[in-house]
C-alpha cells in the first residue's frame, strides 16, 4: 500500500471511525434494552442522542473530512478485518470500562430472578465491573 491509504494516518483514522461508531451503537443498544450497567447516562434519552450523534458525526468526519479518496485503492481484506476487529474490541472494552467508572455508584436493584440473571441480562442491574467482581468473588462459579 502506498500513499495516504497505506499510511498509519489512514489506519488511525479508520480505527477511530470504527471505534466511535461502535461506542455510539453500544449506547443506543444500552438505552433500547435498558442495560443500565453499560450506559454512560442516567437518562436513556441521552443514550439515543449521544449514540446517534456519534455514529452520524463519525461517518461524516471519515468520509468528508479526512484525506480519503475512494478513487484510490484502500485496504486489502486481511488488514481491514484486523483493524476492524481491533477497533471493535477496544470500543467494547472502553464501553464496559468507562460505564463501570461512571456508574460505579450504581446500586444494584433487587436481584433479578433466576431466569433473568444470566449473561447480558445482569448488566441491567450491575456494571460490567460489578458483574465480573461478583463472578470472581464466588470463585468462578454462579
Amino acid at each position: 500500500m502506498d500513499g495516504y491509504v497505506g499510511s498509519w494516518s489512514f489506519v488511525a483514522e479508520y480505527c477511530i471511525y470504527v471505534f466511535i461508531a461502535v461506542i455510539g451503537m453500544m449506547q443506543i443498544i444500552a438505552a433500547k434494552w435498558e442495560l443500565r450497567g453499560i450506559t454512560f447516562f442516567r437518562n436513556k434519552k441521552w443514550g439515543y442522542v449521544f449514540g446517534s450523534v456519534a455514529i452520524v458525526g463519525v461517518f461524516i468526519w471519515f468520509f468528508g473530512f479526512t484525506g480519503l479518496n475512494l478513487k484510490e485503492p484502500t485496504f486489502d481484506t486481511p488488514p481491514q478485518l484486523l483493524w476492524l476487529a481491533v477497533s471493535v474490541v477496544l470500543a467494547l472494552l472502553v464501553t464496559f470500562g468507562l460505564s463501570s467508572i461512571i456508574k460505579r455508584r450504581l446500586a444494584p436493584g433487587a436481584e433479578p430472578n433466576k431466569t433473568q440473571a444470566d449473561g447480558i441480562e445482569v448488566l441491567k442491574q450491575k456494571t460490567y465491573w460489578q458483574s465480573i467482581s461478583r463472578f470472581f468473588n464466588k470463585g468462578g462459579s454462579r
Partner: protein
Amino acid sequence: MIHADQTVFFWINGLAGHVSWIDNVIRTLSCDLFLPVVTIIALIAIWFSGRNTADRIRNQLGVMCSLASMGIANLLVFIFNAILPDRLRPFEAFPDKVHLIFYPPTDPSFPSNAAAASFALAAGIWVYNRKLGYILSIPAIIISFGRVYMGIHYPLDIVGGFAIAILATGIVVVAMKLCRPITDWLLKQMRKAYLA
C-alpha cells in the same frame, strides 16, 4: 448468457458519469469502508438485542452463523479464483466503453468477493431471523448494484457471489448443527463472562 450479461452491464454502467453527486453517493455506499462497517455495527447491535434470553440466543447464533458464512464465502471466492480462468474486469475488457468511477481492482472479476461476503452476512442472520436477514440484505444489494454501476463487475459476477454466499451459509448451517454442543458451550462461556 455472456451477451445478456454485458448488455445488462452496459445498461447499468451507462447511468454512471452523468451526475457527479450520484456517482459520489454510490461510490461511498459501495466502497469497502462504508456498508461493510455498517453491517458489522448492526451485527454487534443484534448480538446484544433480544426481548428475552431465548430471543437473544437466537440472534447470537445468527451473528455467529453470519460471520462464519462470510469467512467461508471469502475462502470459496479465493478457491474459485485459483481454479477458474480469470475473467477480465469490464474496464479491462472494454477500456473505451466503460465508465470507471472507482479505483481499478486487480483481482479477477468473477465471482464478486464483495457480493459474496455481504450476502453471506445477510444470509447467516436470515437463517435465524428472517426480518433482520432481509434488512441486512439491503446493504448487500446496494453494494452489488454499486459495483456494476461503477464499472468493476458484471451482473453475472454478482450472481456468482450471491450463489457462493448461499453455498457458504449452507455449509455453516450444517456445520453448526453438527457442532451444536460446541456452539452451545461457547455461548455458555460468553454468558458466564457477561458477553452473551
